[in-house]
């Protein structure tokens, strides 16, 4: 086969592959939407038929009965505060590590955290949280979120800071700026590309976290979005339309943020992974 024919063949193979995977991705998503819009009786007859009547009120009912407003508020609070601390603590800790070799042992201490699965910390952490009365508190879970994600964040920030020339900060220090003001006003703004990688990498794992919230936030009023859906699913096991409506409402915020920031997401995922 000539190279030209091969190229044509590979182009066709690409189109076929993309079409098949798109179908595989779309079918479960379409079924999720169908299951929410149609009545359970209609769904049982044929999941793929076009709905006879769009049951939009299902969404309102799911929103109220799964207490999604509360779940979203709680998750928003946890995610945003954890992200804020991750960025502040991570960037500032990375600075001396990147600039002075004497902190290398501290760097390795953090770095070791990347290799250790959370499962190893989990049970002693449970004991510690009980001891400090931090179970069912937001601050407790925020501490854990920050501690678990910090190693990667410090790794990304310190790698980037090393690539920044230190002349600028030396000049600022000579001009009499204090080291903290110098860092936050001169260095930190230069770190924007990493900061966006850090936020995107962690926003997904924090917003979607199930395990840590399951362990440390069992109380009903404290439930995150994910746990609200989980307990709703347990309660309304037979009401497929309500569950799917609640699931759709729960994934919308993330999907909207993603569609609005596609480019940053793709760069954040790829950048975080390649550097990691």
């Amino acid at each position, binding site marked *: 086969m000539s*190279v030209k024919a091969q190229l044509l063949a*590979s182009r066709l193979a690409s189109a076929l592959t*993309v079409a098949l*995977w798109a179908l595989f*991705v779309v*079918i*479960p*998503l379409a*079924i999720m939407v169908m299951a929410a819009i149609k009545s359970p009786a209609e769904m*049982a007859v044929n*999941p793929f038929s076009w709905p006879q009547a769009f049951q939009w009120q299902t969404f309102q009912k799911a929103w109220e009965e799964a207490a999604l407003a509360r779940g979203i508020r709680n998750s928003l609070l946890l995610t945003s505060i954890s992200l804020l601390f991750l960025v502040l*603590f991570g960037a*500032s*800790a990375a600075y*001396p*590590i990147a600039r*002075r070799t004497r902190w290398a042992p*501290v760097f390795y201490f*953090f770095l070791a*955290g990347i*290799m*250790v*699965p*959370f*499962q*190893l*910390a*989990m*049970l*002693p*952490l*449970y*004991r*510690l949280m009980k*001891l400090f009365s931090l179970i069912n508190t937001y601050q407790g879970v925020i*501490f854990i979120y*920050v*501690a678990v994600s*910090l190693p990667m964040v*410090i790794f990304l920030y310190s790698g980037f800071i090393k690539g920044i020339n230190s002349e600028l900060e030396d000049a600022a220090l000579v001009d009499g700026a204090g080291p*903290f003001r110098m860092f936050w006003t001169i260095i930190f703004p230069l770190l924007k590309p990493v900061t966006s990688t850090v936020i995107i990498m962690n926003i*997904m794992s924090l917003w*979607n976290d*199930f*395990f840590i919230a399951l362990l440390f936030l069992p109380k009903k009023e404290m439930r995150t979005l*994910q746990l609200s*859906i*989980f307990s709703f*699913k347990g309660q309304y096991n037979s009401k497929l339309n309500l569950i*799917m409506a609640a*699931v759709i409402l729960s*994934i919308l915020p*993330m999907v909207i943020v*993603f569609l609005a920031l596609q480019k940053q*997401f*793709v760069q954040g995922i*790829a*950048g975080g*992974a*390649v550097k990691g």
Partner: protein
Amino acid sequence: MGLRNATWTNNTRLRTLITDALFLLPAFVVFAVFFAYPVISSFYFSLTKWDGINPELKFIGLANFQKLMGDRHFWTALRNTFRYAILVTVIQNVLGLILALAVTSKVYRGFRVLFLVPPLLSSIAIGSIWSYMYAPNGAVNSLLTLAGLEGLAQDWLGNPRLALYSLVVANIWKWTGMAMIIYLAGIQAIPKTIHEAASIDGVDVWQRFRHVTFPLIAPAFTINVVLSMIGSLKVFDIIYIMTQGGPGRATESITTYIFSRAFEANKFGYGTAIAVVMFAIILALSLIQLHFLTRREVRA
């Protein structure tokens, strides 16, 4: 003068040391208290009898590990976890790479976005969608019936011989888009001139992939293999949501087993011992993989 100078530099050095320490302090304290200390103390807790309620611990030496050796359910969980991790790692990387090659052309930009939607979804969303897909009267069986293949209809999560593989498919549905985007970034980082040189030389498509593209995306390959393997060895969410380790113990994983030992059987010491073994396995496998894969990177 010389003396004054010396104290001045000593002072600045001390001042830098103190400011550096202040920069590091918040991260250090949070990480040390809420991660490093629990991790390090877990090695001690694994040597104790501890019920999770009573703060008193009883030191029992290696008894937990001895018990582990004879624990049938532990070995089942280990076997399931390995089977799951190997299947996910292989299939996800093969598919992710094929997809990345397929969507390299800009025509497919919209599809790249679509393929990244499943990775955004939470475990509970994936669990709800696929629980319905797999239900006895769910979507997969309806599809089979529509295609005239009623004979293949199954209780996909209720059949102990299929349940684990059903979970593998759900996992692959979720994460392959992520693997794809990492491979794609690797492919796009290859300088155009290399491809042009290859096409002028009349290199065929397979040779070009085998000798140009694949060696050059070695770093993306390393990171994808290591990430998918570690991630699937730790699997918990979708199992806990979809099957709770059942039917029987057909989908019990190491993490679900730790969870049930601790929070259902109140055997926290024993659970910690399992976690220590899990850590040793993950560490060993990661180091082996990194060793072989990065050696391949250098050679390429």
